[in-house]
């Protein structure tokens, strides 16, 4: 019988729209969590897929010796796709000249991810091809054509074996992001490699095994493999530990998605808390009536719990459908521009969404419901009697605990959860202090004439305890929106900064002093701007503090082979440059940058800090270089940290310019040329046949594409969160408006003018909006600082503009929403209002 009653109440209240707010809150939370997490899951898998292309696989196993056969067999047994390759540097001969090349011997399955791109003319635009060179054939990069004066059809010799060039190689997926000091790649078949005789004991080759397969299987395989690996010789790499620029960006984006989903959960919780409170208050009378008419406590509990269950189920169903719809719509709208794996389906987000709906509904309505159950029957005689329990602390503890639990369960990331949670706590405490402050202030200020402003102020003060919950929910909502907004701005800005429009996509080396002006002019005639010329002198690294050093490659050089962009610069020979100006994205970490040279002083040198570490160099060491036939001593005066992720030439050793007077350098420079103008390269370079050209256009385009995709994904996530936030705000204003209904009706009845009521309500919301905005901006600052420094590994930044924007926008949005719903209320006539009041 209580079931009937609950069902009947539910049905009618549903139809009369009494449950819309709480239903909307549950729908919103489920929809937001589902759409966000499903969408980001799909994006992430697409991005992971994309980044895995830079490894040409999901897992990469490498070694300095040929890998044990057993590893391959075990991988094949596990059902993985496999490919193998051997990479090494070797001289290539043609037309009686030679040059150092990056020989890449691959087997037929290569690459497992990504594409090999080829073209028919050097520096042409590459087209993907699903093949590798035929036996005895090779594909060679443009730079080699230029340096060795080759054309397609010519023969080159690699070791003992001749190869016919059949295509121009323009891209391999796992080229790495080294743009400088890289040798042209020569792609051949792995079975052709033995014939060259270049691989033998002592040759410096890298042997690789590429794998793709199910993530769990790969993990299992890795666990099996690890104990057998010799860390001096072998390494294993997965997308997750890709430390490159792209890897970092994608990981950062993933963290952002996670953050956004967490915020959606918090928003949802706030919405439900507000709605549940409202629901509870609206049902004080029915509960009092039922109790008066003889209903036992248990019956009341059953009836209302059942109602909550009905609402929750309905909310989850609608929210689930809506969330799926939103996500699908967004995904299909952007699939042209962002790779989203539409086929895949994930149960995780669905479970999380349902879980969130249930947890939120239960935990956030628990306290309001308990309050509701405690409403005394005497309320039927004495309207002012509310619920008996009033311990807000319990409410905050329960709600806070629930939020934290949800965040932690979902993110499995204690750090992010703790940061968000603790700044939330700080915000709540600060807001409570503010509300108590307002009460205190209100008591002190006497009462003046009752204008709209005074009316608003008086109302805020009178309801300050009720308002505190409301204020907190507004402020939390605004803060969360600020966090996602600012985080997105900072992150995208940082990405864009690293690849600004006009980033050089071609590098030139071996430019002579006389070619410098000619080149500038020739390029300018075609409207191409040549960047700064860096002087370079080749030198041999001979001694440190008078002690001769073994200048053979150190072991570490090789280990970092795949991912590092510093390895190649280093050998017996080093490129020295000199300058008085510290390069962009270089930071002195020890000592001092050069000041003007004083006669008689030792010459100074700045060393990249990692290199210094590797070569055991410290400040004050005297390093001896052989330059040509001369010997130069320099003293290390500073150590620099270099951002290798920038697309600019970077140097390990920068010398004080005075040292180098008298040496004839060659120059390095770069320029930007649109991909569409690629065919002009040959003409541009024609007068400078001795200059070496490095084409990194394809790489840069790949990077930019990823940045664009990730940025766009981040934008969409932002929009989703903003929509969710806006809905929460609307629900909150709506809820608090209903609470004001009675008061408005009374004011109206007492003859207060419409504009006065409206203005006072708007003022009230404006005040709440301003306070919430200010507090949100402060809390936002704290959260962002913690997030950026602890999670996103970005430099923290202050955002003063939001200290103004947040209160202004808060006031405007909350005020406007308040005005709209107030207008709706006032458009009902007084008798309707009074009737609704009962």
């Amino acid at each position, binding site marked *: 019988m209580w079931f009937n009653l609950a069902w009947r109440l539910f049905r009618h209240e549903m139809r009369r729209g009494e449950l819309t707010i709480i239903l909307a809150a549950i729908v919103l939370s489920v929809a937001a969590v589902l759409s966000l997490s499903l969408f980001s899951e799909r994006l992430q898998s697409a991005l992971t897929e994309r980044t895995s292309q830079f490894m040409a696989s999901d897992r990469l196993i490498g070694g300095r010796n040929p890998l044990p056969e057993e590893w391959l067999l075990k991988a094949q047994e596990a059902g993985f796709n496999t490919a193998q390759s051997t990479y090494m540097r070797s001289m290539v001969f043609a037309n009686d000249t030679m040059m150092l090349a990056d020989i890449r011997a691959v087997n037929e399955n290569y690459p497992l991810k990504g594409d090999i791109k080829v073209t028919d003319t050097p520096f042409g635009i590459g087209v993907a091809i699903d093949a590798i060179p035929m036996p005895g054939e090779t594909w060679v990069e443009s730079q080699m054509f230029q340096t060795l004066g080759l054309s397609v059809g010519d023969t080159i010799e690699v070791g003992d074996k001749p190869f016919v060039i059949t295509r121009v190689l323009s891209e391999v997926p796992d080229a790495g992001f080294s743009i400088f000091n890289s040798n042209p790649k020569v792609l051949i078949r792995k079975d052709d490699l033995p014939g060259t005789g270049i691989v033998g004991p002592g040759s410096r080759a890298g042997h690789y095994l590429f794998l793709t397969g199910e993530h769990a299987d790969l993990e299992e395989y890795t666990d099996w493999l690890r104990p057998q690996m010799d860390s001096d010789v072998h390494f294993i790499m997965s997308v997750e530990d890709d430390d490159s620029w792209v890897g970092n960006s994608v990981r950062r984006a993933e963290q952002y998605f996670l953050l956004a989903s967490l915020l959606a959960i918090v928003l949802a919780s706030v919405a439900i808390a507000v709605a549940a409170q409202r629901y509870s208050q609206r049902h004080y009378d029915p509960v009092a009536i039922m109790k008066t008419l003889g209903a036992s406590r248990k019956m009341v509990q059953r009836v209302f719990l059942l109602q909550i269950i009905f609402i929750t189920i309905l909310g989850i169903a609608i929210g689930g459908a809506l969330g799926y719809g939103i996500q699908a719509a967004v995904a299909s709208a952007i699939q042209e521009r962002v790779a989203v794996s539409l086929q895949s389906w994930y149960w995780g987000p669905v479970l999380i969404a349902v879980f969130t709906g249930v947890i939120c509904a239960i935990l956030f309505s628990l306290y309001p419901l308990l309050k509701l159950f405690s409403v005394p029957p005497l309320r*039927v*005689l004495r309207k002012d009697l509310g619920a008996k329990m009033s311990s807000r602390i319990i409410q905050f503890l329960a709600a806070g605990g629930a939020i934290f639990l949800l965040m932690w369960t979902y993110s499995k990331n204690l750090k992010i959860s703790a940061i968000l949670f603790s700044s939330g706590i700080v915000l709540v405490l600060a807001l409570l202090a503010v509300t108590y402050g307002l009460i205190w202030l209100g008591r002190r200020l006497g009462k003046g004439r009752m204008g709209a402003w005074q009316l608003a102020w008086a109302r805020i003060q009178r309801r300050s305890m009720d308002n505190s919950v409301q204020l907190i929910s507004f402020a939390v909502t605004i803060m969360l929106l600020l966090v996602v907004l600012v985080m997105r701005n900072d992150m995208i800005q940082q990405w864009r900064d690293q690849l600004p429009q006009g980033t050089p996509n071609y590098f030139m080396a071996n430019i002579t002093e006389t070619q410098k002006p000619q080149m500038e002019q020739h390029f300018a005639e075609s409207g191409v701007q040549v960047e700064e010329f860096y002087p370079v002198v080749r030198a041999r690294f001979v001694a440190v503090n008078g002690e001769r050093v073994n200048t053979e490659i150190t072991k570490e050089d090789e280990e970092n082979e795949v991912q590092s962009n510093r390895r190649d610069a280093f050998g017996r020979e080093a490129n020295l440059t000199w300058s008085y100006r510290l390069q962009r994205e270089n930071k002195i970490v020890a000592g001092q940058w050069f000041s003007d040279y004083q006669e008689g002083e030792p010459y100074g040198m700045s060393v990249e800090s990692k290199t210094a570490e590797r070569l055991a160099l410290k400040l004050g060491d005297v390093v001896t270089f052989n330059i040509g036939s001369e010997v130069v001593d320099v003293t290390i005066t500073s150590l620099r940290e270099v951002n290798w992720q920038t697309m600019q030439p970077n140097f390990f050793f920068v010398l004080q310019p005075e040292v180098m007077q008298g040496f004839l350098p060659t120059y390095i420079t770069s320029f930007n040329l649109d991909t569409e103008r690629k065919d002009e390269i040959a003409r541009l370079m024609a007068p400078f046949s001795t200059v070496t050209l490095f084409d990194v256009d394809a790489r840069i385009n790949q990077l930019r594409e990823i940045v664009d995709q990730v940025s766009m994904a981040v934008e969409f996530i932002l929009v989703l969160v903003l929509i969710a936030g806006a809905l929460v705000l609307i629900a909150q204003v709506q809820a608090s408006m209903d609470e004001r209904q009675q008061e408005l009706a009374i004011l109206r009845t007492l003859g207060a003018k419409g504009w006065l009521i409206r203005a006072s309500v708007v003022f009230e919301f404006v005040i709440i909006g301003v306070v919430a905005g200010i507090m949100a901006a402060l809390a936002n600052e704290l959260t962002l600082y913690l997030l950026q420094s602890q999670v996103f590994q970005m430099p923290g930044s202050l955002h003063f503009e939001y200290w103004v924007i947040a209160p202004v926008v808060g006031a405007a949005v909350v005020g406007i929403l308040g005005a709209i719903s107030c207008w709706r209320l006032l458009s009902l006539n007084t008798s309707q209002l009074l009737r609704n009041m009962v």
Partner: protein
Amino acid sequence: MNTAPEYMISTDSITKKVTTSEGPLQILQPISFDVKAGETIAIVGASGSGKSTLLGLLAGLDEVSSGKIHLDGAALHTMDEEQRARLRGEKVGFIFQSFMLVQSLTALENVMLPAEIAGLYNPEALANELLEKVGLSHRASHFPNQLSGGEQQRVAIARAFITQPKILFADEPTGNLDAANGEKVEKLLFELNESAHTTLVLVTHDTELADKCERQLLMHAGELTEKQSDSPQAKGDEPQLKAI
């Protein structure tokens, strides 16, 4: 001890004290009186004199600070809220100034509510019958805010009688109604009361309404005195003045 069955309500020195922010407040001075089964009683007095407070105590909605109340032989003052709720469900009907209908239930469902809570058989049929009696069967499916005040109070009357209570408490039943509607409601109330032989305790400002009752008790600043019956309609026993 006034537990004799002929008394539907029997009170012995009941008081009500509350603590307010300005200190303790005694709303009701010790009050003792008895009400016989089937009697109709009006409690009159100035606003704020404590009429509703007394009604709440008699009906078991509130707890006495001291003293004893027996309702149809049951010792209310010893019961907890759960027990009192059961007692209310079984023996008591209510009518309020502000009607106190559940807004999200229809007129019919509001009338059914006590019957459902009490677990009576076929509440819908009973409710329809009562709606018929109060002349609102055509509004059965309407919600309270679609009904006029008078109509809402008639629904409330129907609801009050559905469990065939032994005692009916009414707090200002016509307070929110205009004269015509008030009269209609009054008429209905007394008719139904008479046919069901219910004991009626009503609080009112309306002297005409009070005059229709067999006895009148006057509340003044928390003290209750029997008002000497000077009305010709008064019938039954002579007043039993017990005010202290």
